[in-house]
């Protein structure tokens, strides 16, 4: 495949003495050059775990990749050693974390933190002046006055901190940017600003982006492809059109759409998905969504569904077996 990032049958578990948490259970995903893939799912669906495994920064000791492969531009990520990984982290694949309040080191200035990545991945033996000017350039790019680089994170507002985090991630012009719920911790007005800025920057720098979110609104704004994740599996995958124009969806995706308030709808209540995400230490048999599914059939309880493909649209649900026939 001519894709930049290919994830195949990835399986990740968190292991402690007595419990095994099955966080990611056989995921297949790919991300092409300059594409934006939105990864949607509830809290605990395994989105962040997947992102951390791409950079191989899963929590030491507990987090383990037990199967599958990740291929980045021809490099088998999972077989690389730490030194080789360090050369990729922050330079070719960058990550933006969820909470800008805690993702910045409180004892280092903003400038020092942005500069760090540049110095770590400096292959051109930049002089101090060149590093400084690159810091200024990147701060300007995310809309921060370069004169503020001597400030500490606590002197910035939440939205500004997230800009700093983005600046850090972009400092080395990475090929892939993984954004893990970059706007969740921000208030709505700032969310829109940060999102459109990220979209612009993505275009400007020609990056690919893996955008992790639980907000379908965010996905609708900037994604080319969408993957819906549930209990460590991708249950539906497709292009933007497959999701927002087509109306055939996995029951879970339908539930997600039903959970969005609609101004034109006159009903007084939202239609949330009943129940909770299954316990990842004890996943249900058959289709993992069946205990919460309104269209659950007998087969769903015993046999895990296969993936049904229709053009670019892929759905993992027994319902689609019949629909294909129709």
């Amino acid at each position, binding site marked *: 495949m001519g894709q930049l990032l290919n994830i195949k049958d990835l399986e990740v578990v968190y292991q402690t003495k007595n419990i095994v948490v099955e966080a990611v259970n056989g995921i297949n995903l790919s991300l092409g050059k300059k594409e934006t893939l939105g990864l949607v799912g509830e809290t605990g669906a395994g989105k962040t775990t997947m992102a951390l495994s791409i*950079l191989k*920064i899963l929590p030491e000791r507990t987090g383990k990749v037990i199967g599958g492969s990740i291929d980045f531009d021809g490099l088998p990520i999972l077989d690389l050693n730490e030194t080789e*990984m*360090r*050369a*990729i*982290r*922050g*330079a070719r694949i*960058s*990550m933006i*974390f969820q*909470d800008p309040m*805690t*993702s*910045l*080191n*409180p*004892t*280092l*200035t903003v400038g020092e933190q942005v500069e*760090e*990545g540049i110095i*770590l*991945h400096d292959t051109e033996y930049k002089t101090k002046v060149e590093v400084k000017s690159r810091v200024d350039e990147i701060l300007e790019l995310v809309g921060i006055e370069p004169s503020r680089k001597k400030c*500490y994170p*606590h*002197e910035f507002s939440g939205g500004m901190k997230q800009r700093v*985090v983005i600046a*850090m991630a972009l400092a080395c012009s990475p090929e892939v940017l993984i954004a893990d719920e970059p706007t969740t911790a921000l208030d709505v007005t700032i969310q829109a600003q940060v999102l459109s800025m990220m979209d612009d920057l993505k275009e400007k720098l020609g990056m690919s982006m893996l955008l992790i979110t639980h907000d379908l609104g965010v996905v609708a704004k900037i994604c080319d492809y969408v993957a819906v994740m549930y209990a460590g599996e991708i249950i539906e995958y497709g292009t933007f059109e497959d999701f927002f124009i087509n109306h055939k969806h996995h029951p879970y995706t339908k539930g997600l759409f039903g959970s969005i308030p609609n101004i034109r709808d006159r009903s007084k209540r939202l239609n949330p998905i009943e129940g909770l995400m299954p316990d990842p230490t004890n996943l249900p048999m058959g289709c993992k969504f069946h205990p919460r599914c309104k269209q659950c059939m007998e087969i769903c309880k015993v046999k895990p569904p296969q993936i049904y493909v229709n053009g670019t649209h892929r759905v993992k649900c027994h319902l689609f077996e019949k629909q294909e026939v129709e």
Partner: protein
Amino acid sequence: MYKYVLKRLLYILPILMLIILIVFSILNVTPGNPARIMLGADASQELVDNLNEELGLNKPLIQRYLGYLAGVFRLDFGISYRSQAPVFNEILGNFPTTIRLAVFAVLTSALIGIPLGVLSAVRRYSLMDMSFTVSALVLASIPNFWLGIMLMLIFSLRLGILPSGGIGSLSHYILPVLTMALPSAAYILRMTRTIMMETMRQDYIRTAKAKGASPARIIFRHALKNALLPVLTSLGMNFAQLLGGTLIIEAVFGLPGIGSVILKAMQMKDVPVIMAATIFLAVLFMLIMLLIDIMYAYIDPRIKAQFK
């Protein structure tokens, strides 16, 4: 910043007055009349009464307290009942030994405790970590006078390489300082380990990892500065404990410090000396706490911002 320091220095005054009041009252209600102790059990009641009159001990407590306070602000701590010499001179002469002991002990415990604690946290659950934590537990559990005697037995009596008591050269300090520093180092080690492990779980450490920083860089540049704050506080508290602890250590090693002065004064009910020694220790403790707060500001920019 200067304003803050000045404010904190001014705070010392009311706290000091309160401390003096407390010590004054406690000594007042303890049994034993100083005049009786000074003159001996055989002295006549008349003589005792006269001396009480002379020392002003028959005046009401509040009057004596105020009179004493007025003296303290002129650095006049009264006359020792025992030696009849001014207390201030006696304390001043013995103070350097105690300070030297405590400072050396704090520095030693920091120099041992912090690096080993970091090492323990970084290699957590390894054999090295376990041996550090277990020996720290043992060291923290044994009473330090016993540790002092054991060190004396080994290094002075068996090996004969270090003096067992008294002062003279720097080598006289080694055993008492070690005796004080080892349990405190054990405490610092455990503290540093715990805090360092918690710091390593923070989001900004993950951010640093995602940037491609090496483990050494993550520890020294990103984690240590953040972890050091709470450790610094406990170092300060340790220092206070060590100052009080010199009482025992000075007795074990026969060192002429403030601890032995207090001990002697207590046996004699030499009130002016006890008072003065307590005040000295209290002021010193407050100054050290201030110093630590100032160091905070240099480590954590968020705290520095509050001082402005």
